[in-house]
Each structure stands twice: as C-alpha cells, then as structure tokens.
C-alpha cells in the first residue's frame, strides 16, 4: 500500500464520489441482488481457495462498495484498508461473474468504483502507484523516454532488416492504415516483440506506423482507480492517431490495453457516444485476417506438432468478443489443438489480470494460490505449448509453470507466426553477389 496511511479520511470527498456514481445502474444492482450465491462458482478466487464463501463476488461487492453506500460514505481508514485487500487482492475485474448472475449485475464495475474511491484516499497498491508516476511523467508505464523508445525501434529495424529484406519500422507516418501501439515492456524488456511485429507487417505488406508518443497502449491507471489519469493516458493515444490521421489503432497482443482503448477509454477520456475517435483493432483480429486472406502463409513443414492450448485473455475473449478469431489462428499454426475446459468467453482469468501482475511481490503468494484453477485447466489439456495474446497472461502462466511444474512453453502469436511463416522471395535476404547483380 502506498503512503498517506495515517492521513484522516476525507469523508466529504468519498460522499461526492459515491453520489456521482449513484446512477440508476448501481442503484438497481445494489438493490436487486437477491443474494442467491450463483456468482460464487464463477469466481476462480473462490474455486482456488477451497470455496471460501468470503471470496464469492457478491460478498466482495457487498462488503466494499455496498457498505460504503450503506454507511453513506462515513467510513474510516481501517475500513478502506479492508476494502483494499478485497478489491485488489481478491478480484481481477475479469467480469466472469456477471455472466453467471441471473440479473447480470456487473460486479467488476462495482469493484472498479470501489477502487476509485480507495484511490481518492491514497489507498492503492504500490506497484500500480509506481506506474502511475511513470504515466504522468512520460506517458508510458515504464517511464521510458521517447529517445530510448525511438532508438529501440531503430535498433530493431536495423537488426531485423538482415532477415527480412526491406524491413523498416516507420515512425509517425501520416495517414497510415494502422497505428501500432505496444505494451511498454516490449521496447523495455522484449524488443524482439517489436521486431517480430515488423516482420509480420512487412511480409503482409501492411501500411503501418509506430507513433513517437502515445505508443504505450497499456492503462494500469484504469486498474488503480485513477480515472483522470486513465483518461490522460488513453487520450495521448487517441490524439496522436487523430494528429497522424491514421485509419485505425492497432493494439499489440495485450488484453487490458484493448479493454482500455476500445471500451473503457472513451469514458475516461470523455469521448461522446462512448466510442473511441478512431477504430481500435486487436492484433488477434488482424493476424486472423492475414492468415484467412493469405497475406501471411504458413510453411506446412513447420506447423507445430506438439499439443497446443489457448489461454483466452479475459479482455480479448470474454470482454472483447475475439474468442473464435484466436482459435481460428491456431488452426493455421498447429496440428494438435486441445481446448481448455471451460473455454472461450467462459474461460477463467489466469489470475494475473486487473493489475495483479504489476502489483508485484506484495500479492505474489496470493496470485500463485488463486492461479491453481488455471494451472489445473492447463495440466488437464496435456498441452506442451500455451498460446496467449496477452502480456499479463504470459507472465502469469510462466509463473504458474514454475510453481506447479506444468512443463509447458508459453508463446505469443507473434513468436509462432514469425517462426513458421513463409517469407516470400522478394523479402528474402540477399547474398552479397546477388545484391551486386541487383544494383
């Protein structure tokens, strides 16, 4: 938990926030919940922790936001600290429970509202607070400078041009079809992700660009309950897209970035109609179209033969509607696909979503415990490769792999596609003599 632990609670501010959120939706939800308990079975925290009834979604929202309303905002710091434990430590806002509630109560929204109230009193996980400072300063969660980012792009372009002839990473190209935005950890820790994306776009002959600002599509401020900052972050991206006049914003293989850019962001940024100013496309959708339309072809000799499973990121499948696209991509890439049970929009959260991974060591033990459901799902498929188009799922499944000895490899679509796609003649690197002939 971040500082200001002993500061008195600003009850007036809490009251104002509660009142501002007290619309027909929340009023209805809080008043009609019939306490039937059907949501319990939907929650992996509940399932992984021996069905502890205190982990049922209804219990969690009743004892946080529900109580805040009942007490009319007259709460103390002690109470908010208890909420802190529930709303960040026991919920990833994966929205699975809303599919299991007969009334369709959107519990994730209730939890997110409770988060914003705790945030207003300086109660927020330290891991998330750190990224907030970075967002504020540099517009990206890792605090990377524009210079470093552009250098990384250039470095990757140079390095990869040796493998794919004519490969470039266009920066700030006006009027491009896709403005490709990434998760800040890609340029920071996995620059090859940028290189792989560039390879795919080059081979698909895509008209794309990377923006020099607003390039980080993640939005952890959304999970920290800092709506103003979340709006600022997403606006950086929208504004850049409008300035460049691009057709669409493309989101890297990241789950919550899609949720932020396409669905929640417009509200944080105050866009009219609740829709983003520029169409948002997720990589899963675009990669599927490339394969479907033959813009990317897979080498039949290199198709994966090992058993493969697919981890549906909550914000790509359940909250993004792209569960079939993910599976159709795999049909092109692998012979032996074994789906998890449950799957598609009913798949469980990996346990790393909702800001959980960046919340860091303070929450790691719990993350491993509640990840048991996912670990068992993976083990039961017998798969050796887990594909997931989300950075948080990627980290979480890797951690689970170690914790539960799953003996799997975790891969993104990019990694597999660049490994096994056919690189047409014209993009093949040229030998020195041939190059001489060409010129």
């Amino acid at each position, binding site marked *: 938990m971040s500082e200001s632990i002993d500061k008195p609670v600003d009850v007036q501010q809490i009251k104002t926030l509660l009142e501002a959120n007290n619309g027909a939706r929340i009023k209805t939800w809080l008043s009609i919940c019939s306490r039937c*308990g059907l949501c319990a079975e939907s929650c992996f925290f509940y399932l992984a922790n021996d069905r502890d009834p205190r982990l049922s979604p209804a219990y969690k929202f009743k004892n946080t936001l529900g109580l805040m309303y009942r007490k009319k905002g007259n709460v103390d710091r002690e109470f908010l600290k208890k909420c802190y434990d529930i709303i960040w430590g026991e919920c990833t806002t994966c929205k699975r429970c809303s599919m299991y509630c007969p009334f369709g109560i959107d519990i994730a929204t209730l939890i997110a509202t409770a988060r914003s109230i705790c945030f207003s009193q300086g109660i927020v996980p330290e891991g998330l607070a750190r990224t907030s400072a970075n967002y504020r300063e540099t517009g990206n969660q890792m605090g990377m400078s524009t210079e470093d980012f552009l250098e990384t792009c250039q470095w990757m372009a140079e390095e990869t041009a040796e493998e794919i002839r004519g490969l470039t990473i266009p920066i700030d190209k006006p009027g491009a079809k896709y403005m490709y935005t990434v998760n800040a950890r890609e340029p920071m820790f996995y620059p090859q992700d940028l290189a792989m994306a560039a390879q795919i776009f080059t081979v698909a002959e895509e008209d794309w660009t990377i923006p020099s600002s607003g390039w980080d599509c993640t939005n952890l401020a959304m999970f920290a309950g800092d709506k103003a900052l979340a709006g600022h972050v997403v606006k950086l991206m929208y504004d850049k897209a409008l300035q460049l006049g691009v057709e669409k914003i493309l989101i890297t293989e990241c789950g919550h970035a899609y949720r932020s850019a396409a669905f929640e962001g417009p509200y944080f940024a105050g866009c009219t109609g609740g829709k983003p100013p520029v169409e948002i496309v997720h990589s899963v959708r675009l990669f599927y179209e490339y394969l479907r339309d033959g813009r990317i072809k897979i080498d039949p000799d290199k198709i994966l033969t090992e058993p493969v499973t697919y981890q549906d990121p909550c914000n790509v499948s359940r909250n993004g509607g792209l569960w079939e696209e993910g599976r159709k991509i795999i049909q092109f890439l692998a012979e032996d696909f074994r789906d998890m049970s449950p799957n598609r929009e009913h798949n469980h959260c990996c346990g790393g979503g909702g800001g959980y991974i960046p919340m860091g060591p303070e929450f790691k033990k719990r993350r491993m415990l509640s990840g048991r459901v996912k670990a068992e799902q993976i083990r039961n498929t017998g798969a050796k490769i887990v594909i997931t188009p989300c950075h948080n799922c990627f980290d979480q499944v890797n951690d689970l792999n170690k914790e539960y000895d799953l003996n799997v490899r975790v891969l993104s679509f990019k990694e597999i596609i660049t490994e096994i796609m056919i690189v047409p003649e014209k993009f093949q690197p040229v030998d020195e003599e041939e190059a001489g002939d060409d010129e």
Partner: protein
Amino acid sequence: MCRIFYLYGLSRERDKVFYNHMNWSWAWRSIGHWIIPWGSVSMRKQPIFTFAFFLFHVCLFAVPIFLSAHNLLLEEWVGWSLWTLPDRVADALTIALMVTVLFLFLRRLVRPEVRILTTAWDYVLLTMTLLPFLTGFLAYHQWGPYRLMLVLHILCGEILLWVIPFSKLSHVLLWFFSRSFIGFEMGERRGARSW
C-alpha cells in the same frame, strides 16, 4: 412504477453508458437466454436449483393470476375474467410453491456461499412470499378458522405487494432492465455474450 420513472430520470442524467450502446437484439437475447430454463451456462451448472427456482416463479405468478376464485372476484368487479386453472391443478401448484420455498429456505441455511450473504431480511421476505399461499391454501381447504384465514390471506397478499417496490423483490420489473443492460453492455459494446 414511480420507482421505474425515477430510475429512468436518473439514468438519463448519470448512466450515459446505458444509452450509448443500446441495442434491442442483444437485450432480447440476454433476456431470452435467462428466461428459458437452463438457457444459460450458469443455470446449466446448477440444474437442481434452476428447476426449483423456475418452479417457484411459475407458481408464484400462475396461481394468483389464474386461480378461479380470484377470477370470480375479478368478474364481479370489472365484468371480465381470465382463463382459469382447474382447482386441483392450482392446489398442486400451491403445494409445489410451498415446497420450493422450503427448498430455498434450506438452501440459504445449508450452502455456505449463500448463508454468508443472507440477512434476516431475506428470510422475512421469503416468509412473506409464502404466507399468502399458505393462508390461501388453508382457507380453500377450510382448515382452521375460515374467516380469519381469509382475512389473513388478503392482508398478507397486500403487504407482499406493498413491499415489492421497496425491496429486492423489485426485480420483478427491474430484472428486465438489468438483463437488457448487461446484454448490450457485453454485446453491442464488446461483441460478447452474457449468458
């Protein structure tokens, strides 16, 4: 009704999200999948509870609306009446309702994830739902003092109707709104299903 209008006004002001993504098709699908028994994954995972709670709701509506005695009164007052259930069937449905109430009562006591959420008010409401049926049943069979039973029956029924707008029982109408909302919130906005 007043409550609905109040919520409508409030939603106009504070819940733009409701109108931004409104879509009838998603709303109907969301309602449809949840109004048909076992129409959603959630219900299929809890088959026995689903059976009990559908039976409960069917009896709850069918008996008072289609009871021949009630329709006789209606005929007297307004000069027309609805199709009626044979008394024997109505009797059976009343018993079924009382059994399902007992089931729901026990479920609240037995299942830890339900017990922890349950408040005394839940038991009171369940009892209040049961009483008009119990007293009506006793009055019909003329078990116990008939006149007293009849008065109690009318009283309990009135109280129950009065309580609806001020309690979770308001879901009798609000359910359609909350179901519609999540239907197009998930569907029109995100392209995903909510059942």
